[in-house]
């Protein structure tokens, strides 16, 4: 369990993380979603105690991270920026990391096998591809068999096989009752793995909802209607819960009315239709809309304060 309360981080003039409050629960995969620069990595560094918050607190399994005597058992993390000495072999890297907690060679070999690095475990990490580096980082995160697994952009640099592998791994870890917290800037990636979403933009919390709820909100259907009598049709369809926009002459984008209703009303009024198509907004579009609003909001307030 991760609990952030009013967590903030300021770098000079820039507020990278702005009063974030959220809880990451065990047993599910929680996606930490936001565009690049939204403050995801900074938040994760503060969870690990690498960066000190300028305000607020964050607790891992009930305590500040630094207060744990067995931090590798509490939370295993893969950070976005590389965190491996290039001159050391993958196995030696893991041996040194485990040695701080008395975790030995048997567990090191277990996680090396788990991430599929056995062949190259004796090679210098500096020669690793991006994908191999990610696998080594994941091995390090799992080394202490931790209650919380936190991965920053884990699919970066992985091939399709690796991406599928990591989805299965995350689901498996959550099914074991662990807290799984995964960041991404891709909605499509999160839609495939996450049960719950924490969405941030410009350091602020934008949404803290289940994926099912996010999908329900996002999939507001729009109907494209093409008619030579568009103006008449617009008057016919207008209503309190109906939004109608028209991009070009003869075209209407109607939301708030089902396709059948539009067709029936047009027929009753004797209006000709050339097209009647229902389109579902994708999750990606819903995410883009949400974060674009945040960016515009932040830009506007920055302008006002000057």
């Amino acid at each position, binding site marked *: 369990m991760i609990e952030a309360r009013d967590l903030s981080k300021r770098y000079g003039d820039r507020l990278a993380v702005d009063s974030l409050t959220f809880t990451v629960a065990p047993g599910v995969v929680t996606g930490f979603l936001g565009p690049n620069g939204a403050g995801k990595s900074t938040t994760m*560094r503060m969870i*690990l*105690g*690498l*960066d*000190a918050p300028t305000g607020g607190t964050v607790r891992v399994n009930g305590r500040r*991270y*630094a207060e*744990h*005597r*067995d*931090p*590798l*058992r509490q939370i295993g*993390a893969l*950070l976005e*920026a*590389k*965190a*491996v*000495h*290039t*001159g*050391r*072999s993958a196995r*030696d*890297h893991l*041996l*040194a*990391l485990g*040695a*701080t*907690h*008395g*975790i*030995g060679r*048997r*567990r090191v070999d*277990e996680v090396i096998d*788990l991430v599929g690095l056995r062949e190259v475990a004796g090679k210098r990490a500096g020669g690793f591809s991006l994908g191999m580096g990610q696998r080594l980082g994941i091995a*390090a995160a*799992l*080394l*202490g*068999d931790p209650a919380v697994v936190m991965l920053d952009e884990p699919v970066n640099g992985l091939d399709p096989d690796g991406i599928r*592998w990591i989805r*299965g*791994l995350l689901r*498996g*870890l959550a099914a*074991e009752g662990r807290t799984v917290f995964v960041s991404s800037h891709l909605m499509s990636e999160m839609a495939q793995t996450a049960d719950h979403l924490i969405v941030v933009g410009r350091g602020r919390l934008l949404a803290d909802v289940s994926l099912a709820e996010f999908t329900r909100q996002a999939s507001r259907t729009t109907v494209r209607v093409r008619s030579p009598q568009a103006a008449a049709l617009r008057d016919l369809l207008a209503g309190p819960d109906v939004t109608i926009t028209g991009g070009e002459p003869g075209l209407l984008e109607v939301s708030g009315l089902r396709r059948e209703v539009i067709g029936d009303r047009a027929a009753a009024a004797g209006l000709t239709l050339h097209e009647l198509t229902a389109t579902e907004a994708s999750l990606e579009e819903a995410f883009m809309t949400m974060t674009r609003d945040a960016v515009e909001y932040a830009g506007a307030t920055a302008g006002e304060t000057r």
Partner: protein
Amino acid sequence: MTTTTAPTAVPTGARITGPRVVRAEWIKFRSLRSSLIMLAATVVVFDALGLGFSAFLADATIEPGTPAPPGGPSSLDPLGASLGGVNLAQLLIATLGVLLTAGEYATGMIRTSLAAVPRRWPVLTAKIAVLAGVSLAVLLPTVLLTFLGGQAVLGDKGIALGDDGVLRAVLGTAVYLAGIGVLGAALGSLLRTTAGALTSVVALLLVVPGVVSLLPESWSEAISPYLPSNAGQAFMSLGGDPNLLSPQAGAAVFVGWLLALVGAALIRLLRRDA
């Protein structure tokens, strides 16, 4: 594919202890080729130069007290000649220290190290303990054997280990070199860049003493003996040089430098974001 449901080999008592952090730093030390190369280079350079200067002094036409060849000891006497490799060897072992700490910042390894041991200070103190321990274990025999080899080369002009102050100077040389390694590690941790820390080492050990000697005499006499290199020279020589502190005072000043730099490095480590 793979899940982690199988029983794991993580021991039930898995948690941080001081000895475990030291062991982790030892694994880090021995698993980097650069550490081993720099340590070996320190040994080879110290030994080769000590024997070379001794052979130079053994030449019948050269009297004790003759100015030394470039890069050599400040004056040629049997002790100074056989231990004359210290001037160059100190730069090599300082580089080893810098690489151990600044190298973690350069590669990002520091984030792994500090996430595993979030109280932080054990990481740096364990690293310095490993560096000092390994350096002394390697350098004590190196310095002793180089001294004995040098005296053998010098023959009749040589001095004995049992002579007044000689054993102290020989052991002091090994301690000085190990201390300079620690100084490099502290500067590397403080400045977080390899290039910056190496520049500072060269400045502190070579440039500053030269600049101080150019100051008015009353100033340079007040400052010069307290610089780390000259404080070290005080306990690596037989004593009696009016420009140096006594061996005991020199050792105290040298240790003071190390404590101050390591202390500053620890404070920065605890206070700043990684």
